[in-house]
């Protein structure tokens, strides 16, 4: 005791001064070279972010450009965006589920059910009872009501409201209207998510089992709605067709560019300088300017290219940014905002990082875990609108086969972790683009489906390996 005395009197002052200088480091910004060095050391420590996926994307683009002269043609690039959009959107929803460390295997077939209801409402001119038959119709309404009740029980009021809206739209039997149909698809997706969320988080079954069962069940429901060997066309509706096949006018394309690039610049720079002024942790100004400038240039180049006439046939004109670009962008912005800026998003990460810590912090873990399934199925339904529009019809295979696996793959390739706590909505976009490039490029090279599947599998395996190895590095760097 007495030997400690000198340390007692001296250490506190000495160390509190050190502490203030230690924390002084981050109040002043790092220099650019320091930031670059810091980034490199984080890479070495295994925090790779989306770097592997971006590198892979560039490599694939270079590879396919070398092997096929059509690949880099404007028409093909625009087509590629539309082909990959639906699956990318489903992946964006799945990121929410992955973040809390769960999985949703049913998102694909659930989106198929939403697409089927959309198509049936259109084809039957709003008479869903006629399309389904009265028994199935009553069960459909009952399922929506059940979903609304479960959501209310979980206090996910948005889920209740949207499920109830689904009942209203169904029962009112309004005539075919593309906007009503899309809204209805969303309602169905949300309702499905409420049921999944309840089963996983309130009943406490493993999400793998619940969603595997629901994957099969929704496939059956889809088959029941469409009928064996049936197909419901929707391409005769102008709006429904244009979602994935239409383009913005040239003027609108540039307006989109100005809004998107300008908005991004204003937000990042505004935030950066505000933080700088208050002495908070910031990146070096050069790097922020570089990011904003880089995106502005890439965006301008892409917009310029997409506003050139790209029709393969000289008699028609196709130009403008495809509608799927603003659709995916909007989802990306909303998803990123929700995850990074809202309390809800913060709690999602917390539940994924340490469920017990989240519970002790007073977070309603049950509600958060249920809600991510609602988000996932709702976004998957939006994805269904896009992919149904792309093919112009809904059949019993919609959202089945590989849709879900590709979507999960996209999220993981982009850098989201299956172990929870790590991932961003942009990961899904990057990963979705990688998979779209693989599918498109191999298709152009006239490779059979067998090769496409094998290559996609290998890409996914590679991504999972990178994830696992970087986790190991991060774990060993932390201690």
């Amino acid at each position, binding site marked *: 005791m007495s030997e400690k005395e000198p340390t007692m009197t001296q250490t506190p002052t000495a160390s509190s001064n050190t502490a203030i200088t230690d924390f002084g480091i981050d109040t002043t910004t790092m220099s650019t070279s320091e930031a670059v060095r810091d980034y490199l050391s984080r890479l070495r*420590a295994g925090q790779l972010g989306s770097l592997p996926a971006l590198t892979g994307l560039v490599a694939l683009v270079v590879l396919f450009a070398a092997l096929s002269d059509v690949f880099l043609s404007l028409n093909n690039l625009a087509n590629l965006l539309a082909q990959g959009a639906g699956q990318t959107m489903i992946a964006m929803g799945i990121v929410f589920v992955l973040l809390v460390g769960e999985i949703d295997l049913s998102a694909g077939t659930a989106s198929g059910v939403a697409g089927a209801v959309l198509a049936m409402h259109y084809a039957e001119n709003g008479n869903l009872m006629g399309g389904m038959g009265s028994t199935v119709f009553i069960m459909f309404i009952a399922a929506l009501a059940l979903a609304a009740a479960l959501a209310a029980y979980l206090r996910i009021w948005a889920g209740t409201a949207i499920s109830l809206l689904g009942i209203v739209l169904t029962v009112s039997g309004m005539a075919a209207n593309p906007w009503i149909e899309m809204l209805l698809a969303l309602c169905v997706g949300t309702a499905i998510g409420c049921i999944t969320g309840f089963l996983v988080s309130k009943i406490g079954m493993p999400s793998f089992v619940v969603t595997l069962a629901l994957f099969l069940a929704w496939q059956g429901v889809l088959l029941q709605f469409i009928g064996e060997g049936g197909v419901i066309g929707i391409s005769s509706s102008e709006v429904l067709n244009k979602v994935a096949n239409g383009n913005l006018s040239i003027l609108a394309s540039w307006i989109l560019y100005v809004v998107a690039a300008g908005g991004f610049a204003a937000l990042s720079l505004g935030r950066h300088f505000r933080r700088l002024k208050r002495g908070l942790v910031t990146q070096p100004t050069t790097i922020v300017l570089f990011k904003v400038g880089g995106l502005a240039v890439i965006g301008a180049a892409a917009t310029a290219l997409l506003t050139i006439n790209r029709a393969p046939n000289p008699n028609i004109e196709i130009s403008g940014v495809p509608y799927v670009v603003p659709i995916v962008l909007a989802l990306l912005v909303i998803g990123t905002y929700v995850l990074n*800026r*809202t309390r809800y998003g913060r709690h999602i990460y*917390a539940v994924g990082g340490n469920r017990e810590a989240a519970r*002790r*912090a007073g977070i309603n873990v049950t509600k958060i875990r249920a809600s991510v399934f609602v988000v996932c199925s709702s976004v998957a339904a939006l994805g269904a609108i896009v992919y149904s529009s792309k093919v112009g019809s809904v059949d019993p295979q919609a959202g089945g086969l590989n849709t879900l696996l590709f979507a999960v793959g996209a999220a993981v390739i982009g850098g989201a972790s299956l172990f929870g706590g790590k991932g961003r909505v942009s990961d899904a976009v990057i990963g979705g683009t990688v998979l779209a490039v693989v599918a498109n490029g191999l298709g152009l090279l006239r490779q059979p489906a067998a090769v496409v599947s094998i290559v996609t599998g290998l890409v996914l395996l590679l991504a999972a390996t990178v994830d696992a190895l970087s986790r190991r590095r991060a774990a060993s760097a932390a201690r």
Partner: protein
Amino acid sequence: MTEPILDITGLNKSFGPVHVLHDVDFAVRAGEVTALVGDNGAGKSTLVKCVAGIYGTDSGRVRFRGEEVHIRGPKDAADLGIEVVYQDLALADNLDIVQNMFLGRERGSAWLLDEANMEQAARETLASLSVRTVKSVRTPVSALSGGQRQTVAIAKSVLWDSKVVLLDEPTAALGVAQTRQVLDLVRRLAEQGLGVVLISHNMADVFEVADRIAVLYLGRMAAEVHTKDVTHGQVVELITAGRSGDIGLARPENAVL
């Protein structure tokens, strides 16, 4: 003698067939440091978690500032002004220091968090606790050392305008200088009028900062004594045998059942 700010009477807690806490009475007084000691497995952490609302209790009454309260969850405890530093820290590895410190009580609106405000408050609190060698408050907790994590957990508990702070072995992973800081902090909190509970296996620390010592022996409260009335030896005896001279459990050998 001051009225206890937190007064627990007749608390029982079992995990299935295992009866962990037996009719425990425990009082925390404002402006005092109460050390809670006991052997490994005596039930110290369980008692703290019951108070924090992490575990439900089988029976028992909790009074806070003289009024009976029902703590049904961590939120209830936090609303009363009870803060806890858990033995296992309870930090989310994927979140950074600021995000962890404000977890569940983020500043700003639900739809737009006030990051700047949180970051400044976190930095000030950490600076006052002398966290060394942390480069940035935006460092993810996964990149911190054990001691740094412990300091973050402690900083998290003093960030709030709380009435009672329970620290479950807060100095277990700390070096000499940091332990000093935490012990000073414990005293400072008590001087500010908070009720402080310190769980520790280090008798020197306990005797240095505690006003009272409560000894748990196999889930029973063996004694609650003034620090100045007992010696090291007596406390050690209470911890290991449940009885020392005429203080302690009447028949500690029966406690084993």
